């Protein structure tokens, strides 16, 4: 449960494996789709976009937060809006690690979902290009509930070319610098606010034989978080924005090289210990190292809190501290900038037979009941009414920290792998993996990234 949550930011990359049966099934399904073309879609069996239109299907990333979506579906199916649109919604839970490939295979098949969970931005770009998404811009503009229901920056983060294709449906997931309060107190340390302080802390921790940072290097996406924040702090959000907009030369920005060099220094200095390339976040390795005080800090998405609450409740309640990522001397990025996933979105398949029903369902995500369910689950909603609900969160202090962090952020950079989409994102992961494993130097990393297409 918490491990699969970790993958929310990893974009479904890494994580638990596909079974052989799944692999073969998906492989042959896609091959058949290829051979037979998309003509089959129209006469597919019920449930999918080719269904009767009375029941529409929603694919959702299967993890602990699904209960919030399930409650939303149940509430909507009983509502007047559902009766008016003449149908119901059926939620289909897809195991987290299989989510992206399963969605991709299904979208080209007769059993395509009508509504589906995604990460916005690059993660839905291929679907937009293939004409499979409903452009929601005018619908949102014309609907008071949707128009004023969400934080505008979050709504915009999932955009493609300035058009909305998704409705926010989960909590915000900023990347936060977590620290172990007990270890910090014992060694008289403060959470670092500058890079020099961070290095200073590292030196003291290493002297005490404590690994400064836990890092799940096997999964690669925890490595990525370091680069995301460093590039932002050194060069500002514009550096990655340029890359995201399709200019591969953007990798040549000095901020990227500098960030890679700082990472390399940390690695060589032992800031992540000597075994991080075989430690995983997904299987609970890195969180355990952190909770047991073997590592003092952990740069991780906001779900780290619920991960620790699940696995090490005492640690989460007593000794888990959180702070913003420090500034880097000489850098131009605002210390208030945030990286991570603004949230997740629902998008609508253009092929759906009951668009009114789908839109009615999406509106439920702006309701107070939905936001309260997210709060109760330990998430911080991205709805405009969220601030008023924070005090009822399991840990109001933490919820408020997160909410303020996102609300006050001048820029919220979407996780690079999600922003670039699966194709480029995976290739970038490979290069990051090589950099962290010491197989390529910072300058080789930059050169390799410039060549990605």
């Amino acid at each position, binding site marked *: 449960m918490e491990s699969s949550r970790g993958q929310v930011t990893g974009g479904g990359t890494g994580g638990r494996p596909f079974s052989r049966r799944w692999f073969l099934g998906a492989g042959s399904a*896609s*091959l058949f789709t290829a051979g037979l073309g998309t003509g089959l879609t129209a006469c597919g069996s019920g449930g999918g976009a080719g269904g009767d239109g009375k029941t529409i299907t929603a694919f959702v990333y299967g993890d602990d937060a699904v209960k919030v979506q399930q409650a939303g579906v149940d509430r909507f199916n009983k509502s007047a809006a559902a009766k008016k649109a003449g149908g119901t919604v059926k939620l289909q839970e897809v195991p987290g690690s299989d989510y992206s490939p399963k969605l991709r295979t299904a*979208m080209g098949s007769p059993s395509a979902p009508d509504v589906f969970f995604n990460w916005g931005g690059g993660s839905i770009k291929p679907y937009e290009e293939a004409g499979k998404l409903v452009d929601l811009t005018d619908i949102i503009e014309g609907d008071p509930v949707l128009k004023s229901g969400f934080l505008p920056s979050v709504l915009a983060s999932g955009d493609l070319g300035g058009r909305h294709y998704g409705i926010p449906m989960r909590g915000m997931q900023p990347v936060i610098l977590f620290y172990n309060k007990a270890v910090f107190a014992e060694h008289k340390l403060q959470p670092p606010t500058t890079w020099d302080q961070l290095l200073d802390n590292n030196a003291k921790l290493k002297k005490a034989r404590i690994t400064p940072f836990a890092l799940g290097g096997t999964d690669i996406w925890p490595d990525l978080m370091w680069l995301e924040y460093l590039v932002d702090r050194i060069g500002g959000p514009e550096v990655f924005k340029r890359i995201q907009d399709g200019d591969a030369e953007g990798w040549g920005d000095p901020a990227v090289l500098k960030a890679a060099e700082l990472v390399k220094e940390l690695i060589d200095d032992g800031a992540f210990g000597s075994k991080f390339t*075989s430690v995983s976040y997904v299987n609970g390795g890195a969180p355990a190292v952190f909770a047991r005080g073997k590592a003092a800090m952990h740069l991780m998405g906001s779900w780290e809190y619920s991960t620790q609450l699940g696995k090490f409740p005492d640690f989460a309640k007593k000794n888990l501290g959180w702070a913003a990522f420090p500034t880097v001397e000489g850098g131009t990025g605002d210390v208030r900038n945030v990286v991570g996933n603004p949230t997740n979105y629902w998008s609508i398949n253009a092929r759906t037979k009951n668009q009114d029903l789908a839109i009615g369902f999406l509106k439920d995500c702006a309701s107070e009941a939905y936001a309260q369910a997210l709060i109760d689950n330990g998430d911080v909603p991205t709805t405009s009414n969220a601030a008023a609900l924070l005090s009822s969160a399991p840990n109001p202090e933490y919820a408020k920290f997160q909410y303020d962090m996102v609300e006050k952020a001048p820029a919220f950079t979407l996780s690079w792998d999600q922003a670039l989409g699966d194709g480029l994102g995976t290739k970038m992961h490979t290069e990051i993996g090589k950099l962290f*494993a010491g197989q390529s130097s910072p300058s080789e990393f930059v050169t390799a990234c410039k060549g990605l297409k």
Partner: protein
Amino acid sequence: MTLTVDKRPTASARGSRAGRPHAAWALPGVLFFTFFAVVPMALALYLSFTSWDGLGDPRPVGLDNWKKLLDDPRMTQSLWLTVVLTVASWAFQTVVALLLGVWAAGRQRHRAVLSAIFFVPFLLSSTAIAILFYSLLDPNFGIIQKDTLGSQSGAFLAIVFVGGWQFIPFHTLIYQGGARQIPEVLYQAAAIDGAGRYRQFFSITLPQLRHTITTSTVLMVVGSLTYFETVLILTKGGPGTDTAILPYLMYEAGFKTYDFGYASAIASFLVIAATGLSLVLVRLTGFGTMRSTREGM
């Protein structure tokens, strides 16, 4: 009259085709193979000449994917890693399975029990085995608290070892069967001639097992070429790209970067390579001529 006509084919059937079943018996197998192997393979071959991201229709791109296959440095690295993995797995598995198989071909009762226990790993799914070893090798909480999977040599050895742990029982079984077929009189004759146990092993057992070795080798080589789950679970091709063998590269191209055209080219290449390799092996060892090991006896 009719009776004699009816008898004729029966009589001729007693000749060369005696006791062989009618071709129709093969029909279910042939159909199954056609739908689930030949058709998908043909489709994959077709896809390898297209560019397809899994959405919309595949777009023909001619030989682009195959040219990329030749130029891609990752492909070169993968091919090399696959060759090394295949050779290392073959050496490890053959030596252990051959010795175990010959030992297990003995007739004492405790051997039967032990043989049954040895066979257990083969009954477990590859995924379960890989997850088990992944936990055992965890650098912080496993039984070997070393950075095993974080270094190339460590990760590689782990893959070879886990693969061996899983498949040695199967090959042991093959060798056990092969060794039990060796006529006892050969050993009796050798013993009379004063040959010791080692001499008997190298002069009788090993030559008599040569077809078994070929069979087992072909299975191992083809198996290594399609070795996938263990790599996916244990290392995900890492650290970096250090253990990204061909099937993993194919999976990554297909199901992570959604470049199904290129993935199909890699898949087709694997089919061609595996078929070619097994043909070469069979030819080189003289297995194809079906000469009996009992010739001249």
